[in-house]
């Protein structure tokens, strides 16, 4: 049941009404049942993996907390982490690594026929596995208390708004909220509905519209002009942003209907002046996870290597974060490129500081934003391409640009769609700029007269219904 499906638009209000009709002590049970049904409707056979991961981590965390013996604490942590990680590795990475090893062996003259698994990747496995591992580490390090109610703990893992593609919730944020009594709060609920509507606009009006142009750009059977490829790759950046930030808005908005505040996953990433800032604004929950549970322990262990310790920790962390997206060399290369980008940026800090002092502030700011954006632009081509070779073919085609290619014939018969896509992207960034001037997300319009506000709502809904694509295209990150 995708967020942009009719089923979800019926499922969500139904659960919402039942939730507030029930006495508060039963509400979390309703959400748990709804979340399990939500997952079962998508994947019956893989629910057992989810149940194993939840059960093992729940009991190991309690055992770890109850013992003062550090070797036993460590043993329970290892059981919890490796049981979850093993499931992830088998289902998501086994075929890739075995197949890569076989190709390497065969290229060196050895004959090796690997036994590959013929199974699909369990839905949401990367997201819930990371959340579970984060929880076990938090309990081990004493950051969080072990949850004693297996029902509440299960809900923390399977809560349907964030089960399939995050945000990856830290235990300190969501678990305490699940224990609180949630009252009906009109303002919170309406802000949730607006966020869902805004997320849907991003998905169905922008991301799904751009998919057409992006697919055309990445279709190797079509010959492209340089200009088409360049524009197509800009559309790719905006498509992924609209798709995933749209998904995250619907997730946060849906959770808000039930009184819960999930982590904000995006914060105007394209205004970042450097990569370090970019990774604090793009897929925030994933990179916070990698920072907390991978980079920090690595940097700590490598601390005596000084500069090289930091460089190694960054490179390993970013490579793993690339691999997290999927078992493919494109994702690994994407992570490595960002690792090199971040380390280069770190090593060039003295030079950047000098440059900042010499150049006019406004020029330095926009130059930094442009460089950061275009670094991401090139890496995202690698991220999206089927193979590393395809990515380089597209980048090479950029050189075949000539002024005669520029014009309204750009995408043949799809001029109207092209103009609509550009218009909606402009609306998206104008709204984001406008909302950045206020403290609360999507609340900038509340001071407008009521007639203007409601007219704007009506116009917005009509725009989404009329111009949206409702073919239930899958969200990009739901595949991971």
């Amino acid at each position, binding site marked *: 049941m995708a967020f942009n499906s009719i089923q979800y638009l019926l499922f969500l209000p139904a659960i919402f009404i039942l939730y507030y009709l029930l006495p508060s002590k039963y509400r979390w049970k309703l959400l748990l049942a709804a979340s399990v049904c939500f997952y079962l409707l998508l994947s019956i056979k893989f629910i057992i993996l989810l149940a194993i991961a939840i059960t093992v981590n729940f009991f190991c965390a309690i055992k770890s907390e109850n013992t003062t013996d550090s070797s036993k604490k460590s043993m329970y942590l290892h059981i919890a982490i490796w049981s979850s990680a093993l499931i992830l590795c088998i289902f998501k990475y086994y075929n890739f690594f075995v197949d890569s090893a076989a190709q390497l062996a065969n290229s060196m003259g050895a004959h090796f026929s690997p036994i590959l698994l013929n199974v699909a990747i369990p839905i949401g496995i990367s997201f819930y596995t990371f959340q579970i591992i984060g929880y076990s580490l938090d309990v081990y*390090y*004493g*950051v969080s208390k072990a949850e004693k109610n297996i029902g509440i703990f299960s809900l923390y893992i399977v809560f349907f708004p964030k089960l399939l593609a995050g945000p990856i919730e830290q235990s300190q944020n969501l678990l305490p909220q699940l224990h609180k009594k949630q009252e009906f709060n009109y303002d919170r609920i309406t802000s949730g509905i607006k966020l869902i509507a805004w997320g849907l606009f991003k998905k169905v009006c922008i991301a799904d519209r751009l998919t057409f142009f992006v697919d055309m750009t990445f279709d190797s059977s079509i010959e492209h002009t340089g200009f088409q490829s360049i524009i197509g790759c800009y559309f790719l950046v905006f498509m992924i942003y609209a798709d995933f930030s749209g998904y995250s808005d619907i997730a946060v908005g849906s959770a808000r209907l039930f009184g819960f505040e999930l982590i904000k996953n995006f914060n105007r990433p394209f205004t970042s002046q450097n990569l*370090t800032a970019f990774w604090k604004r793009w897929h925030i929950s994933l990179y916070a996870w990698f*920072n907390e549970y991978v*980079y*920090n*322990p690595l*940097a*700590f*262990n*490598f*601390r*005596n290597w*000084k500069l090289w*310790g*930091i460089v190694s*920790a*960054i490179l390993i962390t970013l490579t793993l974060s690339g691999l997290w997206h999927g078992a493919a060399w494109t994702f690994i290369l994407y992570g490595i490129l960002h690792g090199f980008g971040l380390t280069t940026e*770190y090593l060039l800090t003295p030079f950047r500081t000098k440059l900042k002092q010499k150049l006019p502030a406004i020029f330095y700011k926009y130059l930094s934003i442009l460089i950061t954006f275009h670094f991401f632009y090139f890496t995202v081509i690698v991220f999206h391409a089927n193979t590393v070779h395809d990515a380089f073919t597209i980048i090479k085609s950029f050189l075949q640009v000539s002024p005669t290619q520029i014009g309204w014939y750009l995408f043949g018969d799809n001029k109207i769609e092209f103009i609509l896509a550009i218009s909606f992207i402009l609306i998206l960034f104008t709204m984001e700029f406008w909302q950045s001037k206020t403290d609360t997300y999507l609340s900038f319009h509340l001071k407008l007269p009521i007639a203007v506000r409601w007219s704007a709502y009506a116009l917005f809904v009509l725009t989404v219904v009329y111009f949206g694509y409702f073919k239930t295209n899958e969200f990009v990150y739901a595949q991971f």
Partner: protein
Amino acid sequence: MNEIILRLTPIMHRIFEDSTIIVTPNLTAKDIEKWTSMTNAIFIAEIEKEFAFKFHFRDVMNLKNIGDLISVIEKKIA
């Protein structure tokens, strides 16, 4: 506590390249521009050298401010 602050001050001035930093128990990483997750590891290594002990990762994972750090150092050198 004062003696630890006196010994931490030159380390922080050097690592975070800011000689105006006034070290107090309430000081946090957010208050110092160059106190990032990158410089933090070097800062930890310098403290270990200055006070001649080794941290465990668990010791530094939950630190909220300089006051927490001082408490850990006090325990380690006691």
